């Protein structure tokens, strides 16, 4: 019963999904689905909010564990999906008559995302990832009359199916090598067993599992589906994909590697002096799996793959897709540090990333709705046509580059400093180099907006830009990018609190 209470937000969302879907059959009002989804999400948010501050507790025999990290990501998912709902509501790509099914999928997706954040067992890992994946496949192909959308959906499903299959196989190998499936007992097993007693196949299992998780966060080498799917999917969906599953994936990745394969160290007084009190907690790897190396390699490649491939693109959605790959690389850096700082930086970065990326996609969505395309050419001259949209887009992009005084810069500073605190200078230099490369393609968009003359004629009459609601949201998304660039202490506190359970252990 306690377990059920803990998952009440999830259940509420499921219920909401069903109501939207079924109710949509009868209620023809276009706003019905939107309103009921928003209400459901808000309800789930309120329920989650009541749980803030409680100590960590596990549920369903340790299948899931409700701790600060899980709670944080649950709330985060709800908020992002709420953004998604709002963007979809404003977008022309989501037809009003198909709203019920669409929003019910979104709500269900949110459930999956929330479970990703709290799963503590291989089974739950698999189930939650699959929930999210399968719903994503359908969302990607939601504009079924567009071949690009359908193609994206097919690629997604093929890639996703293989990735989850590999992950499951990997799980079976890890299970075989250790006999454990829940993460806490896995760690206990590692810390009580001599490394030499463990078979080599364990390593193969971990890599295969990483394939499944890495595919969710689009980390190299499992990143290649991302651009195609992001480009083909409807823009609101892409916006959602680029933030929500990625964040949940990182939650899962952190939990998997930190809970399953590491032990926290309360370092001695000397170490505290060395690192400063705030970052006294770090972790060391238990068991024979050199997962930090794995993540490091993946991180470096992810950054390069994303940034380099983005250079010659014309489609802004595609550019943003590659940029989201690159950002996955930056975020992975934080995980390799095995330090409290690094993990905090990840969470902080995800928050910032949510604002900047979602905002950029939002503007892109407006452009696509208005001009029917998302190419650089459609952005030309936006600066003089729609100054506020363009200014906000510029803010999002500069934030993505990581320039002060925007929030993206602070996010990068935290990531870099976590890496440097571990004295991984080469790694930091590579990341620094990458953020220079990234400037090229972000600035390409800015240049198109401000320096080039308009190319595509503005359609007559009312355009998507005229929506006051979406303008308000764009500005609302841009504001945190500025504010967090100047004063980010509260978010940092939240991020630290989210990780408190690691300290508690």
């Amino acid at each position: 019963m306690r377990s059920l209470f803990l998952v009440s937000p999830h259940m509420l969302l499921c219920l909401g999904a069903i109501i939207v879907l079924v109710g949509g059959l009868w209620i023809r009002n276009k706003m019905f689905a939107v309103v009921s989804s928003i209400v459901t999400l808000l309800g789930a948010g309120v329920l989650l909010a009541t749980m803030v501050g409680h100590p960590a507790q596990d549920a369903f025999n340790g299948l899931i564990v409700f701790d600060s990290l899980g709670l944080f990501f649950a709330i985060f998912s709800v908020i992002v999906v709420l953004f998604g709902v709002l963007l979809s509501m404003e977008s022309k790509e989501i037809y009003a008559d198909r709203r019920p099914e669409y929003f019910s999928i979104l709500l269900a997706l949110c459930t999956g995302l929330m479970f990703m954040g709290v799963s503590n067992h291989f089974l739950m890992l698999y189930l939650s990832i699959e929930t999210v994946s399968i719903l994503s496949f359908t969302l990607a192909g939601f504009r079924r009359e567009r071949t690009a959308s359908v193609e994206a959906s097919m690629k997604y499903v093929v890639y996703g199916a293989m990735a989850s299959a590999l992950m499951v196989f990997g799980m079976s190998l890890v299970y075989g090598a250790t006999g454990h499936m829940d993460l806490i007992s896995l760690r206990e097993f590692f810390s009580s067993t001599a490394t030499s007693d463990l078979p080599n196949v364990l390593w193969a299992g971990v890599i295969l599992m990483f394939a499944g998780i890495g595919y969710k966060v689009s980390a190299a080498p499992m990143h290649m589906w991302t651009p195609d799917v992001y480009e083909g999917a409807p823009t609101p969906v892409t916006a959602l994909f680029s933030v929500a599953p990625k964040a949940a994936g990182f939650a899962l990745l952190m939990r998997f590697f930190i809970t399953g394969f590491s032990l926290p160290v309360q370092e001695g007084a000397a170490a505290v002096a060395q690192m400063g009190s705030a970052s006294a907690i770090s972790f060391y790897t238990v068991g024979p799996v050199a997962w930090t190396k794995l993540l490091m390699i993946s991180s470096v490649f992810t950054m390069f793959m994303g940034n380099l491939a983005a250079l010659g693109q014309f489609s802004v959605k595609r550019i943003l897709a590659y940029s989201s790959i690159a950002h996955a690389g930056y975020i992975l850096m934080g995980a390799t540090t095995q330090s409290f700082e690094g993990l905090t930086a990840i969470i902080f970065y995800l928050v910032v990333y949510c604002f900047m990326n979602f905002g950029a996609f939002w503007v892109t969505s407006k452009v696509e709705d208005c001009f029917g395309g998302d190419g650089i050419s459609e952005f030309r001259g936006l600066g003089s046509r729609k100054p506020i949209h363009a200014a906000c887009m510029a803010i999002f992009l500069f934030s993505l580059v990581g320039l002060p005084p925007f929030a993206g810069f602070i996010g990068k500073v935290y990531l870099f400093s976590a890496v440097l605190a571990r004295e991984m200078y080469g790694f930091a230099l590579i990341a620094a180099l990458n953020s220079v490369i990234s400037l090229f393609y972000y600035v390409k968009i800015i240049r198109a907006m401000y320096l080039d003359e308009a190319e595509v004629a503005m359609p007559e009459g009312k355009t998507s830009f005229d929506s006051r609601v979406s303008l308000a949201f764009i500005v609302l998304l841009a504001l945190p990018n500025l504010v967090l660039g100047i004063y980010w202490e509260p978010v940092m506190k939240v991020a630290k609190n989210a990780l408190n359970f690691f300290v508690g252990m």
Partner: protein
Amino acid sequence: MFAGIAHNLTIYLAMSTVFFVFGLFTILTRRNAVGVFMGVELVLNAAAINFVAFYALKADSAQSSPWLDGQIFSLFIIVLAAIEAAVALAIVLRVFGAKKNIDPDQVMELRG
């Protein structure tokens, strides 16, 4: 109860490995999307076999688990494989409707 499996673990593992390799090979080479999904099924089944076999090994070595984790996992694999196949086939149908072709190599508008 599972002593037989435990004794012949190698055979089960060999079988699952063969499934896995064949599955992977199918995924990577089939020129038909449905075939690719069959490859996925093979890999999933390889995993399911592993789970069952390893659970037996674990139970045999008296580290008995409070619940039948391996067995349950393989059941879930079967269920989810079915769901996935359903969604996948629906999508493949749409692809066929749109392109009259389900060769994954021919579906390549989105690239670069």
